[in-house]
């Protein structure tokens, strides 16, 4: 017995310039059901849903809601039809309270902030959220903001909820909480769509899966009739081997030794305590940990971007036993020593790339200072940009297209590609494959492996434990700003690393600062 259809999209097409984002897509969203929209980066998942939420207007095709053909010209129209979308980048006003954000743009429902707050509490009680109506958004954590977004949509009476990669920024615990809420909404008869490319989540939460590939709808299947392998195949079009090629480390020698490193952030929070490890040339050192455990600060300390409290970071160039102290050096000096950092922040553009510049310009950012000439040397950066575009299959209209106009995954390819291209002796990457599709992720893994075989010391901060275990030679596990263990990636199990991530060893437990 099928659930009633809430929204039906037929033959929907949307193009941006010459790039077709969606071609002739047909989709059904049903009540009392969770539909996963699965696809690689740039496969047009978000674009498709944005046409339901009124952000984009389709070039062709028909949308019916409850059987009636509709025209959705603006988010307002979407709300009137009961469609609400929770965007990947939260649409909240920072200086407003939760209640003010919720009542924004709503007409004739509740009159005052107080009444709105009451309604918010009712919604929270019904579905199991926790929201303080008087809290300002800038004081909220990412997960709180997301909760607020969902409450906002429910407050407007939406019965079709679309969540765009809701778990990308959540910890595993927060994800479970979100899933519990989604199940409550499903039980309440709402239609829920989640856009994702995480297969385990698809299997866990959804009833049906719709797969998009290169803007086209491939199939919609029931989750119970399918398997991750089958979904992957539909998603990428061909069978991808899940094995990451890992060469035995050769010519291993210490390249970077961190000793007793402690860091206190500007706001007084201690983020790293007595961190010590050695990164070897010819080896990939994975760094695992729940997000926000000091990974960013650790890498930035090495790169000279973060002020350290105490400890030393010594870099050993090839054939130099004494080494060079990096603490106290300028970021530029450290970079010239051959230490490269590619950090992919949550918003991707925030660090490392200039949004309004094209690929060529962004390539130039790293080495414009190396030339003594008064005029800019354009040829080499352009060649590099072209090479990255071809090798990593960056889909951009041209090399001079501002990078902020590229999709998230493509932006990231540009950033990581540039860092790898400088052939560093120490290469640090954080979240290099965050939000990237499987094919591109493998391209990046191969590039990292090549760097390792070339004799670089690679430090890879990652989120996916499976990848960490297959890619790295050793894994350093951070927990609460401390090194909670360094394990051999070839023999360690996922459970072992997972346990180290969440529990501090006896001796280091709950130390109060």
């Amino acid at each position, binding site marked *: 017995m099928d659930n009633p259809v809430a929204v039906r999209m037929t033959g929907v097409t949307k193009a941006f310039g010459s790039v077709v984002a969606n071609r002739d897509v047909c989709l059904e969203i049903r009540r009392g059901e969770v539909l996963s929209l699965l696809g690689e980066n740039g496969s047009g998942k978000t674009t498709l849903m944005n046409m339901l*939420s009124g*952000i*984009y207007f389709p070039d062709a095709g028909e949308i019916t809601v409850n059987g009636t053909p509709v025209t959705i010209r*603006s*988010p*307002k129209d979407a*709300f009137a039809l009961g469609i609400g*979308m929770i*965007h990947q980048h939260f*649409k*909240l*006003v*920072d*200086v*407003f309270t939760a209640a*003010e*954000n919720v*009542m*924004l*743009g*709503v*007409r004739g429902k509740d009159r005052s902030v107080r009444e709105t707050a009451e309604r918010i509490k009712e919604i929270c009680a019904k579905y199991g959220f926790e929201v303080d109506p008087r809290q*300002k958004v*800038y004081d909220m954590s990412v997960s709180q903001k997301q909760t607020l977004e969902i409450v*906002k949509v429910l407050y407007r009476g939406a019965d079709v909820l679309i969540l765009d990669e809701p778990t990308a920024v959540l910890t595993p615990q927060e994800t479970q909480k979100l899933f519990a809420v989604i199940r409550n909404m499903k039980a309440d008869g709402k239609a829920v769509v989640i856009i994702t490319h995480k297969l385990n989540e698809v299997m866990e939460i959804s009833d049906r899966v719709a797969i998009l590939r290169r803007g086209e709808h491939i199939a919609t299947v029931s989750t119970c009739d399918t398997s991750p392998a089958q979904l992957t195949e539909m998603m990428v079009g061909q069978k991808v081997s899940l094995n990451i090629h890992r060469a035995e480390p050769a010519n291993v020698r210490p390249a970077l030794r961190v000793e007793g490193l402690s860091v206190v952030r500007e706001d007084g929070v201690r983020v790293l305590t007595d961190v010590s490890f050695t990164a070897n040339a010819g080896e990939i050192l994975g760094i695992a940990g729940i997000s926000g455990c000091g990974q960013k600060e650790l890498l930035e300390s090495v790169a000279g971007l973060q002020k350290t409290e105490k400890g030393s970071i010594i870099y050993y160039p090839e054939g130099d036993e004494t080494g060079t102290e990096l603490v106290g050096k300028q970021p530029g000096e450290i970079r010239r020593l051959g230490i490269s950092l590619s950090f992919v922040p949550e918003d991707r553009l925030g660090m490392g790339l200039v949004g309004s510049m094209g690929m060529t310009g962004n390539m130039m950012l790293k080495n414009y200072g190396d030339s003594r000439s008064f005029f800019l040397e354009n040829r080499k950066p352009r060649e590099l940009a072209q090479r990255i575009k071809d090798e990593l299959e960056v889909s951009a209209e041209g090399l001079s297209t501002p990078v*902020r*106009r590229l*999709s998230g995954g493509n932006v990231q390819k540009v950033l990581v590609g540039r860092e790898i291209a400088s052939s560093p002796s120490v290469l640090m990457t954080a979240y290099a494959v965050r939000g990237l599709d499987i094919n591109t992720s493998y391209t990046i893994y191969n590039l990292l492996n090549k760097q390792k075989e070339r004799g670089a010391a690679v430090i890879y901060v990652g989120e996916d434990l499976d990848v960490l275990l297959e890619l790295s030679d050793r894994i350093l596990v951070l927990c609460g700003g401390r090194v909670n263990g360094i394990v051999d990636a070839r023999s360690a199990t996922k459970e072992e690393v997972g346990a180290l991530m969440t529990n501090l060893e006896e001796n280091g437990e709950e130390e109060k600062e």
Partner: protein
Amino acid sequence: MLMTIANLVALITNSVLFGTVIMLGCCGEILTEKSGNLNLGVPGVMYLGGIASLAGCYAYESGCAAKGTTPAGYLCVIIALVCGFAAAALGGLLYSFITVTLRANQNVTGLALTIFGAGTANFFGGLIMQKSGGVGTINLSATAQAFRAQIPFLPKNWGVVSEVLFSYGAMVYAAVILAVAMSLFLSKTRAGLNLRAVGESPATADAAGIRVGRCKYLSTCVGAGICGLGGVFYIMYYIKGMWANDGYIEALGWLAVALVIFTGWRPVNAIWGSYLFGVCYWVYTCMPEAVSRFLASTLGLTQITYTQNLYKMLPYIATILVLIIGSIRQKKENQAPQSLGLSYFREER
């Protein structure tokens, strides 16, 4: 010159009148900026407001003179306000069209509007002057009188208190009421909340179903209109219905823009802020001569009057101090709207 009570009263009343001009400009600009439009054309729209009211009232008063009748005071006021508001709002409409619809750079457009407004006003000012018979012949006494008419039921016999508090025309009080009303509008009403959302994060407002473009147009036009009333007040009240192309309006316009920052984008602060700016600007009139002489001799100035311009810088110094203090305290509520100065296009990513 010693500081006397009379001096002090004159300083305060001067400052209040001076302050009213920039208070109106400031309130208008806050309304505009809350929608995310940084309209640097405040001096321009003040000019437009001023010249339009001058033209309207000139036509009315000279029409009356030709017929031999006496101009009605209330009509003079209505004509001045309506003409001034409308002309300035048109300036705001032009600005909105260029920045919202055509998405041109806001700073450049605003500066161009200032130049455009000053040019237009001075051109028509010259034209009217020529018509009325030469430089300094425009004298809209009926209108000025109507504007400066004191409010009858306020006590006039309380000595200094009456002079400081109750000696002004209705528009001075109206400006204060406007500032309070605007504060309430922005913080207490749904429309105000929506407007602030547009200025903070247009994408959010858009996703919430608020019509961002319309909101920007409306607040920019009304805001410009209110700025224009500042120009009307200057022409009809401050310089008593005359025209002078001395660039004074432009100076006042920039002070209004500075005041917006000074107030932390809160109209209610514009009330005391504008009077304070007025005091800063006019304080040289009751500075003990010794101070000015000391200043002049330290700086090697031959004339004491040269020090006036130093005092006139005080409002700007105060603004810079407020900016510095604001950025140290990092209180998010008193900062500029987050999307101030940025154009919004829904399909841009």
